[in-house]
C-alpha cells in the first residue's frame, strides 16, 4: 500500500483557490446584505419621521387661531409661528435647527419632532391668504355685499377696527343691536358703505413642503441614502 504523504501541491492550490472563491462570494454577499439592510432602515426611518412631522404640523395648524409667520399673502419661509387658542402654548413655533425639526410651545423649551437618524433638508411653509381678500379701510363700519352668497345680507357689516377678519362677523351684533345703531353710525361717519373684497372662509391656507433625508451627515451615495419629500395643505378655519 502506498503511504499517504499529505496533500500534493496541486491539491493545496486547488483547495486554496476554491476557498478563496467561496470566501469572496460570502464577503460580496455580506456586503450586499449590510448595504440593503441599511438602505431599508434609512427609507423606513425617513418615511416615519416625515410622516409624523407632517401630521403633527397639520394637526397643530388646524387647531391654531392664526399664523403670524410666514406673512399673509404668499409669505414663504422655513419657520412657522402660530397663535394658539390656549395662551400657555402660544405662540407655537416650528423651525429646523441643525437638521432637526423642533416645536416650541409658549415659553417651554423646544421639543424635537424628528430623530437624530435623519436630517430635515428642506422645510417650506407658504401662507396662502391674500390680505386684500379681506382688506379694510380706516376704522369705520363697512356695509358690504358678498356676491358669492345669494342672500344679500349674508355678508353685510363689519367694523374695520375690531381686528375681525371677515365681514359677516359683526352681522349678528348689528342684528341684536338693531339697525338704529347702524343708522347712527352712518349718520356720524362711523360707518360707511363699501365692498367686502372677496371674503375667504379661511384665515390661512398653509402649504407645507418637507424633505427628510438620511444619513444626517457624512458621505451620501445612492446605496446608503434615502430621501422623501411630502406636501400638505392645512387650513386655519375662520372660527378658530
Amino acid at each position, binding site marked *: 500500500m502506498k503511504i499517504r504523504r499529505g496533500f500534493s501541491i496541486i491539491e493545496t492550490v486547488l483547495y486554496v483557490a476554491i476557498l478563496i472563491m*467561496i470566501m469572496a462570494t460570502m464577503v460580496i*454577499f455580506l456586503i450586499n446584505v449590510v448595504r*440593503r439592510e441599511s438602505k*431599508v432602515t434609512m*427609507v423606513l426611518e425617513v418615511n416615519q419621521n416625515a410622516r409624523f412631522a407632517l401630521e403633527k404640523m397639520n394637526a397643530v395648524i388646524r387647531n391654531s387661531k392664526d399664523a403670524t409667520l410666514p406673512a399673509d399673502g404668499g409669505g414663504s419661509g422655513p419657520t412657522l409661528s402660530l397663535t394658539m387658542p390656549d395662551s400657555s402654548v402660544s405662540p407655537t413655533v416650528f423651525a429646523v435647527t441643525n437638521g432637526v425639526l423642533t416645536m416650541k410651545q409658549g415659553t417651554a423649551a423646544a421639543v424635537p419632532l424628528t430623530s437624530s437618524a435623519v436630517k430635515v433638508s428642506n422645510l417650506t411653509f407658504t401662507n*396662502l391668504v391674500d390680505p386684500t381678500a379681506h382688506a379694510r379701510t380706516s376704522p369705520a363700519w363697512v356695509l358690504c355685499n358678498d356676491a358669492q352668497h*345669494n342672500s344679500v345680507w349674508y355678508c353685510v357689516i363689519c367694523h374695520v377696527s375690531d381686528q375681525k377678519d371677515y365681514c359677516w362677523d359683526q352681522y349678528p351684533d348689528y342684528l341684536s343691536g338693531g339697525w338704529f345703531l347702524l343708522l347712527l353710525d352712518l349718520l356720524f361717519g362711523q360707518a360707511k358703505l363699501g365692498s367686502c373684497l372677496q371674503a375667504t*372662509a379661511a384665515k390661512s391656507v398653509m402649504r407645507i413642503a418637507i424633505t427628510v433625508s438620511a444619513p444626517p451627515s457624512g458621505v451620501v451615495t445612492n446605496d446608503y441614502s434615502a430621501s422623501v419629500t*411630502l406636501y400638505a395643505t392645512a387650513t386655519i378655519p375662520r372660527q378658530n
Partner: protein
Amino acid sequence: MVMKKKRGQSMIEIIIAIGIMTVGITFSVSLLMIVEKGVTQTSLEMQAIFYAEEGIQAVISIGDRSGTAVAVGTYGLAVQASPAEWIFSGASDTQNGMTRVVTVSAYDADTKKIDVLVTWHPAPNRTATVDEQILLTDWAFL
C-alpha cells in the same frame, strides 16, 4: 471483502455543496432586493397619498372662496402668487415625477364629487396610482 476507506469529500459532494450554497445566496439576495423594492414602493405610495390629500385640501380651499369656482371639469392645481391662493391650472400638475389630476363631476344640484388621481411610474413600464375622493357641498346655495 475489503472496504475502501473514505478519505474526505468526493468532487461530486463539493460541487453539490457549492450548488446548494449558490442557490441559497441567490435566494437570500433576491429576497433582500424584494424587501428593498417593497419599502421603496411604500415610500413612493406614501408620497402619492400626501400629494393626493393635498389636492383634496387645495380644492376645498378653492371651494371655500367660491363654490361656483369648483366647476365640472379636469384640472391641475397651482399656487398663484397674487392673490396668493390655490387655483385650478391646466389639466394636471406634476411634482417629483408624480402627476396629479383633479376631476370635478356633478353629484347633485349643490354637491360636486372631487376625485384626485395621482399617477407615477415605479418602473419604466409600470404605472401606479392613488385615488382620493370627496363630496364637496356648496353651502352658499343651500
